[in-house]
């Protein structure tokens, strides 16, 4: 005997709900605590190792490619000592040059840019030689680089100092025979809060649009023609409040922890093999 009324009772009351993410009510075991437990992690990892970050373009992130490149990068870092330096630090690079009699070329300058992720990571040094501004771009993992030294470890207010092109030459003049200044281990990296004076416009780029903090008051220097022109431009200060736009381009804590543990493991293996004592994962600020 079949009773349709009984069939009705069986029907789920929540038939029309589709729950994309069921609230994790029972979860008390927290990943947050476990992240903090791992010893020896560097808080400022993305700043010291921008080459180990993921691409800011989401659909270019490829786990396999990153993994393979990371292996090569670690291998290279075991052969050459790549010190910690930031945009704003003064760096000396010695590279081999077949054209010179000494077969070696040394360039000193302030690091104005660090770009790209992975094996293609680049940094640019700038110096003024006999009143001519010179910029040299180096690939960090290029095998022609023999030695990288940090002569002065410091940061500036911005993470991109491209505007030094349009600044007065004294802001990018550094002595080639500069003595390296040792940074006391365990102390925070000093921030040089120097504000740069720009030359009169026209400039190579419109620096006043991006909110650079290291430029000294661009508005009063601007000529009336520029003031009229800038008056009409689009103000996009609100872009910084777009939390998810930032999220899309930045790296995540989980990824950083993963990379750092991998680096620690690699270091340990090499030390155990007894071939080298070189440390790859290190930070001047959090040194113990």
């Amino acid at each position, binding site marked *: 005997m079949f009773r349709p009324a009984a069939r009705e009772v069986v029907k789920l009351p929540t038939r029309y709900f589709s729950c*994309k993410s069921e609230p994790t009510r029972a979860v*008390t075991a927290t990943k947050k605590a476990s992240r903090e437990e791992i010893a020896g992690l560097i808080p400022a990892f993305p700043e010291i190792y921008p080459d180990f970050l993921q691409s800011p373009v989401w659909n270019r992130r490829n786990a396999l490619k990153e993994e393979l490149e990371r292996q090569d990068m670690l291998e290279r870092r075991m052969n050459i000592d790549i010190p910690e330096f930031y945009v704003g630090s003064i760096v000396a690079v010695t590279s081999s040059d077949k054209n010179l009699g000494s077969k070696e070329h040394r360039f000193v300058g302030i690091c104005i840019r660090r770009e790209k992720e992975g094996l293609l990571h680049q940094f640019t040094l700038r110096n003024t030689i006999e009143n001519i501004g010179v910029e040299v771009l180096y690939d960090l993992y290029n095998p022609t680089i023999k030695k990288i030294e940090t002569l002065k470890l410091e940061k500036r207010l911005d993470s991109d100092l491209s505007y030094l092109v349009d600044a007065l030459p004294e802001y990018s003049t550094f002595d080639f025979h500069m003595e390296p200044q040792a940074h006391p281990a365990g102390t925070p990296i000093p921030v040089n809060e120097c504000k740069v004076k720009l030359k009169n416009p026209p400039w190579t780029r419109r620096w006043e649009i991006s909110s650079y903090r290291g430029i000294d008051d661009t508005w009063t220097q601007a000529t009336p023609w520029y003031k009229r022109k800038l008056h009409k431009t689009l103000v996009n200060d609100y872009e910084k*409040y777009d939390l998810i*736009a930032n*999220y899309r381009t930045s790296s995540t804590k989980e990824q*950083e922890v993963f990379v750092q543990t991998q680096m620690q493991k690699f270091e340990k293996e090499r030390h155990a093999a007894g071939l080298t004592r070189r440390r790859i994962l290190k930070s001047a600020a959090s040194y113990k």
Partner: protein
Amino acid sequence: MSAHRVAASLPRIGVTIGHTPQKLKTGGIEPSRRARLEVLRRIVTRTVREERVELKWNRAVEARPYVERLIQLGVERGPLDEYTAEMMEWWLPEKDLITKMHEVIVPRFQNRDSPFTSLFRLPPQRLQQFIQNKREVWKRYDIGVLEIDGNPFPAIQAAHQEQSDSILDVLLADALRNHQITLQEKLEASTESK
């Protein structure tokens, strides 16, 4: 590359985030990225105030990561952090909501990972738009409910029942129920006859 680093890295957000920002209808305001943020700000403010809001599905999906990120900033950095304070001030223009965020909502998630919110889909609604020459124009809306977890309201979804959709199980359950009902009837009949 940006002029200066915006935020130090935070953990991953545990909800679906599209690879590109979606366009939202910005009734009245000229459509722009600014208008989109303005719409999202209203939704976020309302969500923090009411803790459970009924929205168009696409808006709910778009606003959810922003709510998640705000809570995450509170959990990871705390109210004293400069960046957190700036973001809270912009996203929650009403001052009491910032207090609510730090004192009521964030403590719920102190020892938890994302997701801090839930999103449910309601049955689509069909609403009459206007009548033109005896022609009725109806429109269908996908509705979602966005809520912050741990809110005081009764749960949207019923507790999960142990139930199988397999035909054998359904027939068996029916058979058992029928059997029970027949037994019940027999029992009643016997008590009546006595």
